[in-house]
């Protein structure tokens, strides 16, 4: 029996696992998909919000501000890219000016440092490419950007290296209480635990219902994004927001930590929790809307578009509670969920302790994880030292992002291990460049087949039926 089982390996579940792995506890994370970070964690705006949006006194407000303060240290420990680039909420009218003043005051109440209201001239100096129609802005110097899926992957890997277990392809179908223990079952396996953390994202309501908690519903709200070539990465340096509405923070323009330019998200309530298709209209809205905030966005420099589903709780705030002793909900984690995630993990631990969880720190807990990009960031001399010891670092596989075979092999062999092309993509950035895997995916397919000791026909894009090749060509079959 585990001390704690966490359901969901998104950024919240992964950071919770890491936090718990600091202590002498047996921890197991159950993840429905075949990899970490498969839900909203890999399809969001990648922003660590300053914290002026959420209503004062809400969990969103408190945990956002705290999480954003915790983020730099955690990212440094885990080797995750993080950049304190600052945020700007721009306004075009007197009404916007009033909203911006409200946000300023709310931010003060929430404890956000360094907020400033800028006039047109000051805004234009900070961002020369900002729309000529913008007349004012809220400047939040503590706003930042991060790589959200890398954060989850690194946190989970670090948790596993410190003793936590991860079970992928484990879709929780039922949870029974048997005496002290929760018995959590998939179709094929069951685990038991004294404590359960429900971090199941868009399906958190489904999980809660399994123990009889019908107090909340999670409904999906779709957000579509367009990502532009790294050539466009310095069109703006801050994350550019427009004034928020009740559907969310609006469509923004932001550099990413990898120097791409991210446009989006839209905000649309949908029915299907599994439908992550982008739409013609949605993508068009992204382009039109962002064109109003920033001048000269090069529409023809898109390299990909994608879609995520926000897990919107029906209470208006994060749903963090304990409906049953030993069971913690971390539900309704929509924006500012990523920003709040380190603080949510800590809050979860607090709740567990209140329920009797005894924690003793492990002497050998190692919070440090080598960055996935240590090679890229090394000097030529350092790189050549590495290449002398391991030639595979001398062979470039992904030309667009200059990722070496050595880095890909390391990613395949490091917790949490990937099993498919997308898993390698999220860990190494190979296939994320302007050719989107056109050049490197045949090589990565071969490398994966070799390392996982599977035939090439079994290599997938993202597990399940997403096979890359359906079989050999006739000639190859003849040669066999």
């Amino acid at each position: 029996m585990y001390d704690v089982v966490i359901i969901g390996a998104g950024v919240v579940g992964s950071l919770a696992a890491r936090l718990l792995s600091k202590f002498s506890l047996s921890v197991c994370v159950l993840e429905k998909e075949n990899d970490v970070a498969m839900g909203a964690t890999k399809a969001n705006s990648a922003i660590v919000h300053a914290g002026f949006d959420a209503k004062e006194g809400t969990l969103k407000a408190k945990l956002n501000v705290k999480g954003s303060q915790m983020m730099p240290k955690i990212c440094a420990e885990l080797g995750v890219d993080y950049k304190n680039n600052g945020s700007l909420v721009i306004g075009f009218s007197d009404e916007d000016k009033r909203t911006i003043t409200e946000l300023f005051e709310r931010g003060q109440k929430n404890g956000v440092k360094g907020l400033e209201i800028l006039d047109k001239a000051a805004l234009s100096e900070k961002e020369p490419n900002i729309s000529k129609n913008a007349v004012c802005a809220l400047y939040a110097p503590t706003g930042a950007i991060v790589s959200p899926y890398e954060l989850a992957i690194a946190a989970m890997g670090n948790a596993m290296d410190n003793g936590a277990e991860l079970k992928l392809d484990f879709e929780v179908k039922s949870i029974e209480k048997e005496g002290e223990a929760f018995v959590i079952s998939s179709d094929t396996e069951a685990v038991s635990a004294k404590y359960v953390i429900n971090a199941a994202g868009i399906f958190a309501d489904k999980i809660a219902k399994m123990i009889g908690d019908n107090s909340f519903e999670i409904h999906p709200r779709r957000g579509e994004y367009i990502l532009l070539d790294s050539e466009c990465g310095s069109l703006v340096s801050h994350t550019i927001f427009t004034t928020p509405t009740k559907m969310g923070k609006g469509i923004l323009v932001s550099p990413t930590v990898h120097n791409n330019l991210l446009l989006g998200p839209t905000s649309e309530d949908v029915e299907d929790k599994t439908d992550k298709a982008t739409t013609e209209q949605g993508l068009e809205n992204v382009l039109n809307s962002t064109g109003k905030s920033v001048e000269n966005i090069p529409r023809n420099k898109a390299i990909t578009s994608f879609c995520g589903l926000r897990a919107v709780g029906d209470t208006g705030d994060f749903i963090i509670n304990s409906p049953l002793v030993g069971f913690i909900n971390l539900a309704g984690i929509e924006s500012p969920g990523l920003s709040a995630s380190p603080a949510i993990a800590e809050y979860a631990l607090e709740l567990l302790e209140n329920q009797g969880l005894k924690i003793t720190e492990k002497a050998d807990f190692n919070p440090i994880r080598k960055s996935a990009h240590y090679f890229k960031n090394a000097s030529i001399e350092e790189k050549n030292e590495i290449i002398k010891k391991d030639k595979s670092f001398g062979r470039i596989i992904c030309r667009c992002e200059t990722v070496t075979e050595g880095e890909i092999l390391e990613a395949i062999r490091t917790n949490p291990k990937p099993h498919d092309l997308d898993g390698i993509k999220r860990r190494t950035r190979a296939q994320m460049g302007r050719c989107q895997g056109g050049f490197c995916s045949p090589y990565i397919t071969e490398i994966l087949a070799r390392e996982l000791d599977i035939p090439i026909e079994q290599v997938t894009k993202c597990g399940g039926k997403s096979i890359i090749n359906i079989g050999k060509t006739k000639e190859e079959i003849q040669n066999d």
Partner: protein
Amino acid sequence: MTELVIIGGGPAGMSAAVAAYDSGIRDILILERDTALGGILQQCIHNGFGLHKFGEELTGPEYAARYEKMVFERKIPYKLGTMVLDITEDKVITATNTEDGIFQIKAKAIILAMGCRERPRGALNIAGTRPAGIYTAGTAQKFVNMKGYMPGKNVVILGSGDIGLIMARRMTLEGAKVHAVCELMPYSGGLARNIEQCLNDFNIPLKLSHTVTKIHGKERLDGVTIAKVDENRKPIPETAEYIPCDTLLLSVGLIPENELSKTAKVELSGVTSGAIVDQNRQTNISGIFACGNVLHVHDLVDFVSDEAEIAGKSAAEYIKGKAENKINIPIKTDGKIRYSVPQVITEEKDITVYFRVSDVFYNVKVNVKNEKGEAVFTKRRPKVAPGEMESITLKKKQIIGSKELFMELEAVK
């Protein structure tokens, strides 16, 4: 210091190397990222290469082998498995491979021959899901011809450029069913012989003025929605049609790969996405030359070889200390002529100017006028099309005295 470094060992790089060698240069190094010379020709196993150059119908690998032989006979040095990471304005090249690690070479002259890459789905913003089963045609070609694997069985192809047409036939020959080739424009971008030999011969429907509007399928492709487009190339919703398939091949544009040219501060043309060059294929940086698909996307490798010979010879002259040209005659085009290579003339001599047109035109004259509006050259063409590169040869006496040249298409009455 190496006298001549050639980036890319495909047909352009090899041809340039041989031409430079035959012009007397010995200190040459070809840097090639693949495990063999030959470039993209290695995977172009269909024939049709070499009709002009050798008077024969060779396959891609056979054409490449002819040049490899020339490189080997001359013992021209080359490094395989070597990726160039950076080129500076003063011709310092940084590259990496497993044997040498990361190393730097200073070159006296550089020939850029990096070829091009394919435009991916993401650049078109095609809506829908992001399942497996979507490949650019060249990537699929690599799987089929180089690795021996079939990407799928039920195929729709977007784009009727040559690669799309070739892959329509290739997939069919390997037992796949190609349901349709959709082409956004009202005409195909590929060579006429490929329409015949790849589509018509196999009864594969070509749907002109059509595009893919949505992709379906969670893990692997289930099908695509296609629709007819109007005169502004916008999809007409009422014409939407669903085609079940497990594979979508994209042949939607080749983009010269000039990332390295940018690091060297080579000036690029907004039209070709390749360098702006003179008749010697020299870029704005003295001693840096460009040829082949990295300069502008070619239809026939025979012209690539011709172009690369010019670059190779010119690089040799540069290395031997030939004086810099003093004249600068820009060639402007009227838009119907989309671009010319070269874009500028720096020597008064006979010059072949290659160009592409922006649409299909029948019964036209290609006119070249100088800045005074005087006609210096004219040639009739019964038909010109975007998918077929054209050329004209200007004689020295036609160029002398001009300050600027204008190329235009005129309808013949």
